[in-house]
């Protein structure tokens, strides 16, 4: 009578092993990893989703997928902030990580077709956005303009420098970068990322705007977008929260009633109207 015992379900907490195939420090604290699943099967994911990354014995944490499903393997960028991330930083090529997922919501890759895309990235916020940027570049004809704003605290912390340089050479996208504090080697924009918003050459209110950055950034960017009269249902925010299980059980990632691991991390801003804890 008890059906549940009969169908042997998978263990949602059981990670699959993946092997590090490439690794490179992007700056002093951020490590880039390219992984391949030991099963030989690529994960099926969409831009915006994340995986739960484990080192057995140390722990587990959510990490955004930075690669695009159009490429092979899985790319992650990991900031060294604590136990798990410190140990991951010590792993070499050939090292093993446990992977669960992908989990969470995705960027509106389908609805965005034909529209101009504006990405506003603060610091490590570029990492998940890059997944959609690359996806859009790989499906270039499906989308209108692609505009990427990148703000970084200081010159030395800039991520994906070569890739950004390549993007900047492309005629079919606009990339603007700024750093918070002036630096001798930097002759570009100085100031927080919001200072770039007025420079956007596109019809902002009809574009889709994707935001990801540190907690403090959202408020100011959203204010600027409100001024530019971007409707709230065209804004997507990518939010971080404490997260343990990644599958809607442990309760840590809740923003009011919303579980970031299920309804997020990518939220349409208009859906957050009754979610005061969000921003």
């Amino acid at each position, binding site marked *: 009578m008890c059906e549940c015992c009969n169908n042997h379900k998978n263990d949602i907490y059981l990670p699959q092993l993946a092997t590090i195939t490439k690794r490179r420090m992007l700056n002093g604290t951020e490590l880039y990893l390219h992984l391949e699943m030991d099963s030989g099967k690529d994960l099926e994911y969409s831009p915006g989703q994340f995986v739960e990354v484990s080192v057995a*014995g*140390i*722990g587990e944490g959510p990490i955004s997928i930075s690669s695009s499903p159009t490429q092979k393997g899985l790319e992650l960028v990991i900031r060294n902030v604590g*136990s798990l991330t410190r*140990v991951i930083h010590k792993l070499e090529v050939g090292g093993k990580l446990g992977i669960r997922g992908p989990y969470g919501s995705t960027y509106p890759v389908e609805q965005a077709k034909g529209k101009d895309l504006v990405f506003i990235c603060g610091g490590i916020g570029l990492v998940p956005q890059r997944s959609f940027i690359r996806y859009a570049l790989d499906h270039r004809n499906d989308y209108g303009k692609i505009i990427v704003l990148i703000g970084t605290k200081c010159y030395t912390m800039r991520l994906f420098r070569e890739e950004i340089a390549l993007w900047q050479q492309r005629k079919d996208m606009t990339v603007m970068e700024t750093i918070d504090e002036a630096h001798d080697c930097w002759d570009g924009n100085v100031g927080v990322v919001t200072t770039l918003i007025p420079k956007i050459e596109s019809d902002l209110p009809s574009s889709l705007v994707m935001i990801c950055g540190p907690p403090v950034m959202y408020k100011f960017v959203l204010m600027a977008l409100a001024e530019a009269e971007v409707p709230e249902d065209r804004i997507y925010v990518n939010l971080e929260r404490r997260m343990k299980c990644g599958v809607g059980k442990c309760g840590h990632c809740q923003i009011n009633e919303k579980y970031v691991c299920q309804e997020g991390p990518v939220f349409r801003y208009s859906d957050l109207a009754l979610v005061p804890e969000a921003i």
Partner: protein
Amino acid sequence: MSKPRVAIFDFACCEGCQLQIVNLEEEILDLINLVDVVEWREAMSEQSHDYDIAIIEGSITRPEDEKRVLLIRSRAKILIALGACAATGGVNKLKNNFDMKEVRQCVYGKDADLPHLDTYPTKAVDEIVEVDYKIHGCPIENSEFARVIRALLLGKRPMVPDYPVCVECKAKENVCRWEYGETCLGPIIRAGCGARCPTAGFRCFGCRGYVDNPNVEAAREVMAKYNLTEEDLKTRMVLFGSKQGPTL
């Protein structure tokens, strides 16, 4: 890979925390497989100045001890304060409720001024040098000690609870001391002991020190709800009202 070198030192204390390490019994052999214990006066005769991890037990009550702590810090890569005396000052801080001269007089009478009986207000180790990790408790829980050491050896930040004793007390399914009309410091004291005292029928007297952000102000009003007075609480604050952290 050479094993990390560990040294254990003791200052003013009862050495009960070291005893807790001894009480790991067979597990000490596991520990010794992983590290070289190069100095541990209570248990062995060898001594060394070359170590990676220094474990300090006891609180600091004399200028010469303070010098020794500075020396240990300068030699150690990781410094661990072991037990309440080292981590918060422990029960020794009760002394700080009095004038030092009077304290010496009280204990040694007419001989109080002999130089070797000198003392100053008790300090925790982190009042003198930077402490990397604290293992709380009077005495420590040796399972926690084991967990912290293993975490360090794996390069992991050891988990030190920052939630109150009530969490563990409830998990043990104890009847709350407050329901018996007693005061208990559980709601503002750092957990990690498995709520030993309430579980054994005694109130929590705060040997692990306060949680990071204790709601001490609430205590006064809560006392009133139980028809108890502030006086009832005063001598019952952390480690019997010794001067460490917030008091009423």
